[in-house]
């Protein structure tokens, strides 16, 4: 089958003869991919920032597909079902899954206890080949995969596997109260969704900060946000302080993660010398921009073992940090409703529809932010079969 194949940092190949996946466990299903997306999280892999990313792996954790085969223990899914597959591999029966922390399952990732199981996300994410391919092995098929509701656009369905719930949880973690001023760092797909959802929790002002002008422009339209370029600021923290009457924002959301730019010191120590896991610039700004007693929601991904962050301010200001991998399954019913009722139409942020064959170009375009790209969608040649 066709599959994306990782050859090293910034080197992606299209494999033409990768063996098709097989059922390995009674709860497995095999899915023929109909749509898959490239995520900002994939860029951390692409840039070589996630330890135990092995050459030959197939990435991709945001995909929809048609069930082609099921293991002997699968009860709810049937061959022929068209499903959206949440990015978390979750067993459904460990204490974390039972408490709806599906992003923190204890039975899906042998390699790292700090990390849940994720499709196509290095061995630090469990060692699963992912959905930027024609077929995928989907474990625990009865737990997370969800039949695409009748009448839902396929592009909205595939965005429900990660970006939409992740953006929602970013806002939810902020504990936003009616009247709050919310600052979102990062105008990528996740930050855009977080900004959009901040209004759902009653925010009175939503401010998005990034350095890519076309994304800021999009944030104004898509997320009804005020949007500013930090390259136009000498000090983004001072900007937020002044913009909030010298009080600080009520809630700050870090939707950037370890590939942040904006600080030479962070870049040298994190991307050059590898003394920390990438750069924690946005987190640094978030902690310093939030009010005393405020909440910082971290949805951006950071790698092990550590990052430079101002813990002293955290304590002195009495800040609460809330952070997690999104728990997609928990949020699906609510978000399906938001889409079906027309309150949100996330597919507006899909700017590029690219054949799977051109996956190498797609990665480079997304990484270098070429051609005003916001969210690239990959379409496998066999998407329309049968």
């Amino acid at each position, binding site marked *: 089958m066709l599959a994306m194949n990782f050859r090293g*940092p910034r080197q992606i190949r299209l494999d033409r003869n990768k063996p098709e996946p097989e059922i390995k466990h009674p709860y497995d299903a095999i899915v023929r991919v109909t749509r898959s997306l490239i995520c900002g999280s994939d860029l951390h892999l692409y840039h070589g920032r996630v330890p135990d990313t092995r050459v030959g792996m197939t990435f991709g954790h945001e995909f929809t597909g048609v069930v082609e085969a099921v293991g002997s223990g699968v009860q709810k899914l049937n061959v022929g079902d068209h499903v959206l597959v949440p990015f978390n591999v979750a*067993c459904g029966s460990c204490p974390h899954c039972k408490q709806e922390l599906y992003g923190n399952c204890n039975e899906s*990732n042998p390699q*790292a*206890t700090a990390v849940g199981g994720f499709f196509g996300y290095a*061995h630090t994410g469990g060692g699963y080949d992912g959905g930027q391919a024609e077929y995928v092995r989907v474990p625990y098929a009865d737990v997370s995969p969800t039949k695409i509701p009748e009448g839902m656009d396929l592009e909205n369905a595939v965005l429900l596997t990660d970006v939409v719930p992740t953006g929602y949880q970013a806002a939810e973690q902020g504990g936003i109260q009616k009247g709050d001023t919310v600052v979102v760092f990062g105008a990528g797909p996740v930050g855009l969704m977080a900004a959009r959802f901040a209004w759902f929790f009653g925010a009175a002002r939503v401010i998005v900060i990034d350095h890519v002008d076309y994304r800021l422009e999009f944030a104004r339209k898509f997320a009804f946000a005020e949007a500013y370029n930090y390259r136009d600021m000498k000090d983004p923290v001072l900007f937020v302080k002044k913009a909030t009457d010298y009080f600080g924002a009520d809630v700050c959301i870090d939707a950037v993660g370890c590939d942040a730019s904006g600080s030479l010191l962070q870049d040298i120590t994190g991307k050059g010398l590898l003394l920390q896991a990438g750069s924690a610039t946005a987190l640094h700004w978030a902690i310093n921009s939030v009010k005393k007693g405020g909440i910082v929601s971290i949805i951006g991904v950071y790698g092990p073992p550590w990052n430079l962050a101002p813990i002293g301010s955290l304590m002195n200001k009495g800040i609460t940090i809330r952070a997690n991998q999104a728990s997609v399954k928990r949020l699906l019913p609510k978000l399906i409703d938001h889409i079906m009722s027309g309150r949100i139409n996330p597919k507006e942020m899909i700017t590029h529809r690219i054949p799977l064959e051109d996956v190498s170009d797609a990665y480079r375009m997304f990484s270098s932010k070429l051609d005003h790209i916001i969210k690239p969608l990959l379409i496998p040649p066999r998407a329309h079969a049968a």
Partner: protein
Amino acid sequence: MQNELENTIAEFQDRIIADRNLDTRTKDIPGWGMDADPENDPTYPMKHWNGADHERLNYEKAPQQPIDMEVLHSVERPGITRVFGNSTPPSGLSGAVRRYAYQFSEATATHWMTLILADRINVIEGKLSDLTHGILPNPWIERGWRAEWKHNRPAFISKAATTALLITAGLLLLKKKNKRK
């Protein structure tokens, strides 16, 4: 390493000790439980607390996926998870380095830095294996240069030119040095 406290500890005792304390000790501790407040739960609504954490690892588990390949596992867990990804098992020199890394906990830089080292070795192994299979490097496609050429030509050209210039300058410098010797 054998006598370190973590290697001599009796495993799976946490709940036994906790239950014993709840039965006997806590009633003698002045103020025990007085200020317990189930609402004081900063994880809500992300976590629907139901006490399952106190089951520890005694929950209902799926059957074990047959372990038909080498699976490295974190020393912070007792064994392999019931289900695991079957992509790219460890192999070659990078595999040996990974095996070493997995002897250390996820709290150590040794674990993660060694894995990053293994990843870089693995890239070289990948190139060698490509060559033995007659696959030549194709940066134009694989590094996305084609995409840069299409959408970002001026910047791409000037970057390529600068790189070429730097390499030529470096080579010339090396030549000079060698001559002097």
